[in-house]
């Protein structure tokens, strides 16, 4: 196993180095703009999103210490939270153009509300059914 790990690691370093070469070939201006986003992504996650989940998590732990069974609600929150993050570009319609009606041509806010309501109904349904099974 040690040999195959060394091999995998070596290949990984070579592959990443090729990527760095491709990136450098795109010029310094491009590199600067890329690094802003590379570092920005890590900072946004580690300094903003992750602490936020710590706070939410602390609240959820307190609730479940109080004996409330909230598993299905947490899963529902996970679905809505992560899918909302994935949908930021369409929710904000940042790429919309007045000369192209075929692009971003839905009411995304209504879609988001549908997702929230549907998830809430399913989560509560699971919670109720489970509660009845295990009184």
């Amino acid at each position: 196993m040690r040999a195959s790990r060394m091999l995998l690691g070596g290949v990984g370093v070579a592959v990443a180095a090729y990527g760095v070469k491709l990136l450098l070939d795109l010029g310094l201006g491009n590199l600067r703009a890329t690094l802003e986003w590379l570092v920005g992504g890590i900072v946004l996650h580690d300094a903003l999103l992750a602490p936020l989940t710590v706070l939410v998590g602390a609240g959820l732990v307190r609730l479940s210490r109080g004996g409330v069974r909230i598993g299905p609600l947490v899963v529902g929150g996970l679905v809505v939270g992560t899918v909302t993050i994935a949908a930021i570009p369409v929710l904000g319609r940042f790429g919309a153009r007045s000369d192209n009606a075929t692009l971003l041509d839905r009411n995304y806010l209504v879609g988001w509300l549908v997702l929230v309501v549907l998830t809430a109904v399913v989560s509560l349904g699971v919670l109720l059914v489970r509660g009845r099974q295990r009184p």
Partner: protein
Amino acid sequence: MRLPASPREEDFTSRLRGPAVAARVGVWLGTCFVIAFVTGFISHEAHVTHPFVAFPTRPVWLYRVTQGLHVASGTAAIPLLLVKLWSVFPKLFARPPRRVTELAVESLERGSIAVLVGAAIFELASGVANTAQWYPWGFHFRATHYAMAWIAIGALAVHVAVKLPLIRAVLGAPIENEEHDRPGISGVAPLGRRTLVRGSLLASGVAVLATAGATVPLLRRVSVFGVRSGDGPGGIPINKSAHAAGVIATALSPEYRLILRHGAQERSFSVADLEALRQRSGKLPIACVEGWSASGTWTGVRLRDLLDLVGAPRGRDVRFTSLQQRGPYKVTTLPSQFADDPLTLLALGLNGEKLAIDHGYPCRLIAPDRPGVFQTKWLAAIEVL
């Protein structure tokens, strides 16, 4: 839980945050990244004029499927990456070792993880923004997304190589097994580890269902976050409008002529001339790098028929020039296997209608199994190379 000024690894007491969850979510996340990398490489090959292996013209839907998969696997990865990062977040605050050699090894590992996390977030964020045609950055999207993919997949291989013994150990044990957990985790959690892993997969599936309607017609009504509903002139959406390309006057002008050149031979065609040539019809998809696609029945002149008019031999690449005034795809080169393909048309009509100006009136190129940006609209000139 108290929030100290500077948290330590032990301050995170959740039994959900640990290698048992991280490895299981990681396997799915890694799978998504490998699919996205392979399909992304295929897309890159489809974009270069002379790739490693000549890009195939069949099946006609190949690029549509690989690019749809590319965007779907990237979208699926977003919830998985968020849960994966959440499950290992306490490691960020682990105390560094005292011994110099250990410190050096750990610094290297942390560096490789920083590269992996940065590249992974970069790829997913830039990719999902690109699907919605949002470009809030100063880098060249396609080239940078491609370069960063090699960095991400390389860093992923290094990460798996480093963690392999731990991955094998936790995947081989029951999910609630605590042998490899951080010290100090508490027993209280609002849900079990298995539920968290399944919940992540559920979120990942919902993310795909909510967006894939832009390329899977059956999902159009389900995909509340689909970038396109599939509507448009002739039943097909558009990417660049005639207005944006600045071609309205030249495309509608009665003086319009399509120039066809092969060496010293040159012919020019008015719209009526093109309509007088033998017309053919074929069902071909238009599939964009942003992951949306739609299939239509195109009518027009077979490209090969036109090339025969100027005596062009088979096996030649063909250069297409658009009326559009600027943009990287104003001039494109069609590799010879597409130029000689009987399905490749100069389309004058779509789904029984005259080609709309936003679809490239007077005529556009439509070839099987090609990225959308190369299906050049508002053709001005065709030149045999």
